[in-house]
């Protein structure tokens, strides 16, 4: 029994580490891109603020430890044993690494909750899960928070451009928002600590309650807060190298003023939600803000294809990790040997995925942060003009080619007539019929080109 608890704590801290690792870019990519901060400084700042943020509040941790799994009808703890929490955390880690490998946008938080739901369903049945708590504190915030953040970012971007606009042609000094961005991204890092670090604290507290080490009414033990804060801070610091790579591949077209508006909306949304114990996905909130602020700039519009792909990744996470959680829980039903097999399977899968990741490090699309990807879902006027011009050029080319082909066709017909009239004349023109043939092909290739650019 005891060793399973320790195993869960270790796994949960590992999960916390990957969470920080995964999300550094969300906060610090923009100030590095605009050169407001040096990469090392930015990453260190994010790590420290995550650490501080983790200590600020425990509302979300209590949601996880108390709000999701029902009380054990037999009395005392919760209606789930440490073994099933083990299955849940393992599923979350595996899903996280898989999505990272394939460059799918996903939420670490949803992976954790999905794993927990799947595992609890197999381990203790429908009655173990507090469906109301799940809906109220996890599912609804998951849907609403990105929308709130996006709407706010839209308004904030509009407002910030209106305030700083000048009509007399003098410089408007919007470049100074770079400095403001240092503060707004710091707030995002802080809010990340108040929400994401809490989830791991909640899981560790849940396993302690489940093992009977502490009672359900106790708060989060201090050593749990401290270790989770450290784990997420170290993860954030290690994630720094990934950010530098992200910037090497070119960051999206986010201007300082716009970035400031987006980051402010993200930070405020997360802080307000954390205070009410809503366990939301910080990545999704940040993505919502980036899309909202992109739309707030003049003449922009959503690329629904890209936005849809991101949304699919979001929707997939909960059921997929629930399925993995359920599978591991079924394994755990075998008893202690199940836990050992599960650990082995998990470690093996992780090792395989890391080897694959090493092999095609650049192709996997894992260098881009999810939030940077969200920015791709908005197309801006400049970009659109460029695309439209390309499409027009391609269309004109196709038209010209078609006209040429038509002329050639007519010439061919005329030639055929001439051929009937005089064999000697036809002989002289024999070289020409080959021409229309090559030219009729051109419109097709031009069309293909156009299609390629449109997609």
């Amino acid at each position: 029994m005891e060793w399973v608890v320790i195993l869960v704590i270790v796994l949960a801290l590992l999960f916390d580490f990957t969470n920080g690792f995964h999300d550094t870019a969300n906060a610090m990519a923009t100030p590095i891109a605009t050169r407001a901060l040096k990469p090392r400084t930015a990453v260190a700042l994010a790590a420290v603020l995550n650490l501080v943020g983790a200590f600020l509040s425990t509302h979300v941790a209590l949601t996880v430890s108390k709000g999701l799994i029902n009380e054990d009808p037999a009395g005392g703890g919760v209606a789930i044993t440490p073994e099933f929490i083990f299955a849940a955390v393992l599923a979350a880690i595996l899903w996280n690494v898989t999505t990272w490998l394939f460059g799918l946008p996903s939420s670490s938080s949803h992976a954790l909750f999905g794993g927990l739901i799947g595992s609890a369903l197999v381990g203790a049945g429908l009655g173990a899960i507090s469906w109301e708590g799940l809906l109220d504190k996890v599912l609804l915030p998951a849907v609403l928070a990105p929308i709130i953040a996006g709407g706010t970012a839209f308004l904030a971007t509009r407002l910030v451009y209106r305030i700083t606009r000048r009509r007399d042609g003098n410089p408007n000094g919007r470049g100074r928002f770079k400095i403001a961005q240092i503060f707004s991204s710091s707030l995002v890092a802080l809010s990340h600590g108040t929400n994401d670090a809490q989830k791991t604290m909640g899981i560790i507290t849940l396993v302690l309650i489940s093992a009977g080490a502490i009672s359900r009414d106790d708060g989060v033990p201090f050593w749990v807060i401290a270790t989770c804060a450290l784990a997420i801070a170290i993860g954030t610091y290690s994630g720094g190298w990934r950010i530098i790579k992200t910037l090497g591949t070119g960051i999206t077209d986010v201007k300082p003023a716009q970035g400031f508006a987006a980051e402010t909306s993200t930070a405020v949304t997360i802080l307000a939600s954390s205070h009410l114990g809503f366990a939301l996905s910080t990545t999704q909130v940040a993505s919502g803000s980036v899309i909202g602020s992109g739309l707030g700039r003049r003449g922009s519009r959503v690329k629904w294809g890209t936005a849809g792909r991101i949304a699919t990744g979001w929707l997939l996470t909960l059921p997929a990790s629930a399925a993995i959680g359920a599978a591991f829980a079924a394994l755990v039903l075998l008893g202690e040997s199940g836990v050992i097999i599960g650990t082995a399977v998990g470690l093996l899968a992780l090792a395989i995925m890391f080897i694959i990741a090493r092999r095609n490090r650049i192709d996997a699309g894992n260098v881009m942060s999810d939030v940077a990807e969200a920015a791709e879902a908005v197309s801006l006027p400049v970009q659109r003009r460029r695309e439209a011009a390309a499409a027009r050029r391609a269309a004109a080319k196709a038209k010209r080619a078609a006209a040429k082909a038509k002329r050639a066709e007519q010439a061919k017909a005329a030639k055929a007539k001439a051929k009937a009239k005089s064999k000697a004349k036809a002989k002289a023109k024999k070289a020409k019929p080959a021409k229309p043939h090559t030219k009729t092909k051109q419109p097709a290739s031009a069309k293909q080109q156009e299609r390629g650019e449109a997609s």
Partner: protein
Amino acid sequence: MIDWSAFLLVLVVTVVASLAIVSVVGLGIRLLAVPTRPGPVGEATDEEEDDVNHNGRPLIATIFAWVSFVAFAAIVLYGIWLIVPAFH
């Protein structure tokens, strides 16, 4: 029972606080961009491809710009004070 008022609270707090922060910072930055006399514009261009003008700005604009930045700091600190139970 779903607590819709909690969501409403998040919505209101987010919109009000974000717009307040963005307004004061935007105002401060706009005030810093107030030029007094026409003159050569600095060689440096910023991220938005604008030239940065350092040809002196009225003292009052500088003062109010800094008042705006202090207001920004005050909003942020108040927000953090609100959410940390240890301060209550």
